[in-house]
């Protein structure tokens, strides 16, 4: 119990620091890939601090409430995960958070925000099956949905869940909002939807959105880590190395692709889920 409380508190305090730092690293590496010097690594923190000082304005009475709920439930998602709770509970809470974000964008009735919200929904439709299949994969391999139990596994899940791992990495591009699937909003300035989903968010609300993404990214990388646990210290090392590799891979993908049409996002993710995910599940059935 004490361990759980420590893990949750550590997540609440450390996740934004790690997440913000990773975001800074992302910008630095991206800049180098593009032959620029790039901002300081701590730039994301400066950005958010600046947002907090902006004038408090909003477009209606409810939008910021929904974003707050998004923020809260993203944190709750991560807390469940690091407390070792049920993976499905974790994923369903994340869905709840995402729905709050989408409804926030819809609530403004702003053209850009709404198109962004529709695209965000489409992205959910694209990645959700693979996310659920990933949870089922862990369950079939370790016999439990509980993250705490999965952590105790003495066999590394990765070799048995390799198809699912690849599928999960694929949809991670959508979750990280990276090109080619950064349809609903993007951290690049070159998009046709203004800021997409977040067009009408400003000041503290926008800061909350940024911080929520840091929390979310740390949790998602935690999912990647879960593929490599085997109860030994070197399993942890492989896990952390692989998390960093994955993050680098996503940055590389981001910089190597132009944005694609939404049809590509949904077609490819579903094909990946059906081929890699389902085949992997069937194979697990024979293994267990």
């Amino acid at each position, binding site marked *: 119990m004490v361990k759980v409380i420590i893990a949750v508190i550590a997540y609440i305090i450390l996740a934004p620091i790690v997440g913000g730092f990773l975001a800074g690293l992302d910008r630095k590496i991206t800049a180098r890939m593009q032959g620029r010097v790039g901002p300081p690594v701590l730039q994301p923190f400066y950005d958010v601090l600046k947002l907090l000082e902006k004038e408090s304005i909003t477009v209606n009475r409810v939008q910021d409430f929904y974003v707050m709920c998004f923020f809260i439930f993203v944190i709750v998602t991560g807390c469940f995960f690091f407390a070792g709770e049920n993976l499905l509970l974790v994923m369903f809470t994340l869905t709840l958070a995402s729905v709050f974000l989408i409804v926030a964008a819809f609530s403004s*009735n702003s053209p850009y925000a709404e198109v962004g919200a529709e695209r965000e929904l489409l992205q959910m439709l694209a990645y959700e099956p693979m996310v659920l299949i990933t949870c089922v994969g862990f369950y079939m391999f370790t016999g439990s949905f509980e993250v705490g139990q999965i952590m105790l596994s003495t066999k590394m899940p990765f070799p048995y869940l390799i198809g699912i791992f690849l599928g999960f990495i694929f949809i991670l591009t959508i979750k990280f909002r990276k090109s080619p699937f950064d349809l609903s909003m993007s951290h690049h300035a070159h998009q046709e939807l203004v800021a997409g989903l977040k067009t009408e968010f400003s000041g503290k609300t926008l800061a909350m959105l940024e911080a929520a993404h840091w929390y979310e990214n740390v949790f998602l990388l935690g999912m990647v880590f879960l593929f490599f646990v085997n109860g030994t210290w070197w399993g942890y090392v492989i896990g952390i190395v692989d998390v960093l590799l994955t993050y680098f891979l996503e940055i590389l993908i981001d910089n190597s692709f132009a944005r694609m049409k939404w049809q590509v996002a949904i077609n490819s993710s579903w094909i990946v889920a059906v081929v890699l995910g389902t085949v992997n599940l069937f194979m697990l059935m024979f293994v267990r």
Partner: protein
Amino acid sequence: MSTISTVIFLIGFPLLVAIALLILKSDAARDIIVKVAAVAIIAASILLVVQQFGSGGEYFEIKAAETIGKIMMVCEVCLAIIIVVLGCKYKRFLAPVFAIIQTPLMIWFELSKGHHIAVNNPMYIDRLSMIMVLIIGIVGSLITVYAIGYMKDFQHHQKEGVPDRRPWFFFLMFLFLSAMFGLVMSNNLIWMYFFWEITSLCSYFLIGYNGLFHTKENEDKVATRNAFRALVMNLFGGLGFVIGIILLGTYYETLELSTMITIGAMGYSVVAPAIFLAFAGITKAAQMPFNSWLLGAMVAPTPTSALLHSSTMVKAGVFLIIKLAPVLGWNVAGIMVMMVGGVTFLLASFAAISQTNAKKVLAYSTVANLGLIVACGGVGTAEAVWAGIMLIIFHAVTKSLLFLCVGTAEHQIGSRDIEDMDGLFERLPKLAAFMLIGIAGMFLAPFGMLISKWATMVSFVDSNNILLVVIICFGSAATAFYWTKWMGKLSATMAGRENIQKNVHGEETFVHATLATLTVIVCLGFPFISSALLVPYLEGNFGSVDTLALSANNMVILCIMVAVLVLLFAFFFGKTNKKIVPLYMAGYNMGDDLTFMNAMKGETAVSLRNWYMESYFGEFKMNVIGVIATSIIIVATVGIVIGTLGGM
């Protein structure tokens, strides 16, 4: 009062009320009778559960059983005659053909063989029927109360010269409740069949409310056509029921559902009768290839849809399949049921994405959820049945709420199109809030349907049904998609809309509020429902129940989340100290957030529309695929069973 008298009251009282409502034609009398009757029925349903809660139910011997059986037989003949006459009158001959085949078949069987088979306990109560009684009693009665106000508006909206046929409408509603009570408490399959046929006929008349018996110029042709479609499909299912009974009587010398389950539990195969009974369940639960009758049912006044979708009719179908679950599983019958359910769930969820008509979205969502329940029954493990029953409970409450909300919205804003519901929070704030609760209840954690879907998923993995697991992963994603875009539309803030909440009838708001509260309460109370009713029921039917899909720990977490959400909304929703500024519109916002200045200096109104992805999830495409796939599954499995019977 003894239990048996409560049982008789539950079946007899709604019948008497129905007759009274048919005779008394004044509005005032109807208002009072319906309200009093609703209270009495709710009270009696709760009383029945309280009486039997300790013992967990009992089987009844009934002295007059033989006489009752004869009366039922006479009624069946009358029903068949009605069907034949109406079928000929409207020149739709398929329904009479089914009636002419099955009724004489049934009577021949009863007089020749059925007569010699002793039925010890024609009626019973167990924890599953208690749950059903509560659903029918509470949700069903609330719908009748809602109908009082709704039908006044409905009559008001009718063309000049259309006769007021509300007595007939309310007669059917209460008759329906009576038949449903009978259905969930009958152990004698012949009795159950009798109630089954009454519900088929009631829904036929209710769907055809705007068409049947009207003069040529007032007749809504679509209503007549859809009513006959529903009748034909359900009579086809009824034929399956009859064959199931005959097989059971001939080969196993029994007519009792409980005995059939016991025989199955002892290791003898009861696949042959099970497959025909399950087929009947599939038609009634509007599974593909028979889903079109339920979609056609939306031509009827809204209370009809609410009743058919939530507490009656389709729930009779899934009830039968859940009852049969112990003899399903990995056998031909079980595989048929789980495949039909799974395919229906997936394709109906997809089809719902492409719909703008709110009632159609609700209808496809019902078909999809029933598919999941049917699949749970087919899987037939304790875990799956737990999930299936939870789905029945949550779906009944939430779906009735949503239908009644859409019905009211339709009368107030003059449209049932989701695209016309933007800014509903300004126009009908209370209604929008109720609708939001209903939608959240249908797919979001920590609410009911999500809990059951979660349990369903776990039970599918545990029974090694990988295909069903994949189906549920994709189906859930689709479900979240269509509900969220509706939710978004509803939440869109639009300036300058007039608040018309006051035009809504008091009864309607009362029923909405009650159902919305129930939606939340059931979510808070489901661990109790599980431990008090479901687990003992499952232990009785499946032996020990060692694992449940959701641990107690998770159930508590979900309840806390419900409470947190309620509190968040109660304290923070709609409150802000921030300065409210105009939207960004690329062009110059004219100041009202609804129009902007375009490049030619003219004004352009903003119009926002949702995605429907017709090319992916078009209704027609989904139906064609679904009907073909499920027809093949059904024909193949029934063929196998008939083949083996021939060899017996």
